[in-house]
């Protein structure tokens, strides 16, 4: 029996190229939000524009 990961991958592979890129963009948005949440957790006194600047710096160095 296929694992749920395999079944999910099979569904993703059947998407159109445009829809796959839309999923990738949504992954990017999620990653940005999670990274920002991590920055806020570590440094709760940062202003929002400073949080954004930290996330931007992290993403600029990210290897994907």
């Amino acid at each position, binding site marked *: 029996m296929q694992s749920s990961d395999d079944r999910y991958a099979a569904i993703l*592979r059947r998407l*159109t*190229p445009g829809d796959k890129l839309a999923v990738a963009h949504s*992954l*990017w948005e999620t990653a940005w939000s999670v990274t920002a949440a991590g920055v806020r957790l570590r440094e709760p006194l940062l202003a929002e524009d400073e949080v954004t600047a930290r996330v*931007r710096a992290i*993403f*600029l160095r990210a290897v*994907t």
Partner: protein
Amino acid sequence: MVTGSIAAMAYGEPRLTTDIDVVIVLSEDTISGIVAGFDATEFYVPPREVMVIEGRRQLHGHFNLIHVATALKADLYPAGVDPLHRWALKNRQAITVGTERVWVAPPEYVILRKLQYLRDGASDKHRADIRAMLESLGERLDRGTLLNEIEAVGLAREWASIGSGPKSAEAPAVQERDPLFREAAKICIQNQQGSTSLLQRKLKVGYGRAARIIDQLHLAGVLGPPDASKPRDVLAGLEDLDRICGPK
């Protein structure tokens, strides 16, 4: 022409990325278009002189554009005289994203580049990208062209490692062979030809599996390289089976 992870996603599965790789034919006009099209208050755009210098490189030219607010990055690779770039540009494919038509490198090119990255020690993500592309594309992949290029640029070892992830350096191909590999080798030797149709008929397997076995037989030295639509030459004899496949 888009390549790299974005092209791999279009052909395979979506994953997280923060950059887009683009192969471009760089001219004075293209450079002017980049300068005019990317507002310097929103994007990092290299000085025109840098783009000119990178565009003059025959091989390995490269520069970036970066969207400052999101840190999304485009890696631009001038085509130069790289014959693989030229082949890919000639065979690029159009895909639709929303209402836009986007030129994407052919999947064979994307796979070859990722195999090169693997050879150069890059991360395992390229192996996962290739696997997803192979799963998605099936018979739409031009395996003849791909295998010819793999052989020409010496990437057979990396190609053999795609089957089931990182393996010991000594015998990756043996561990990844199809369970019917030995039987298939015997059939090809006895019939003095190697083709997917022969294996489909004799082994009662589908096209995809037969094509994979043919690739494995080629990499193991049982069959010669693809030759248009003709069956492949057989390069081994029955006496070689134990050496190639290991004892029964």
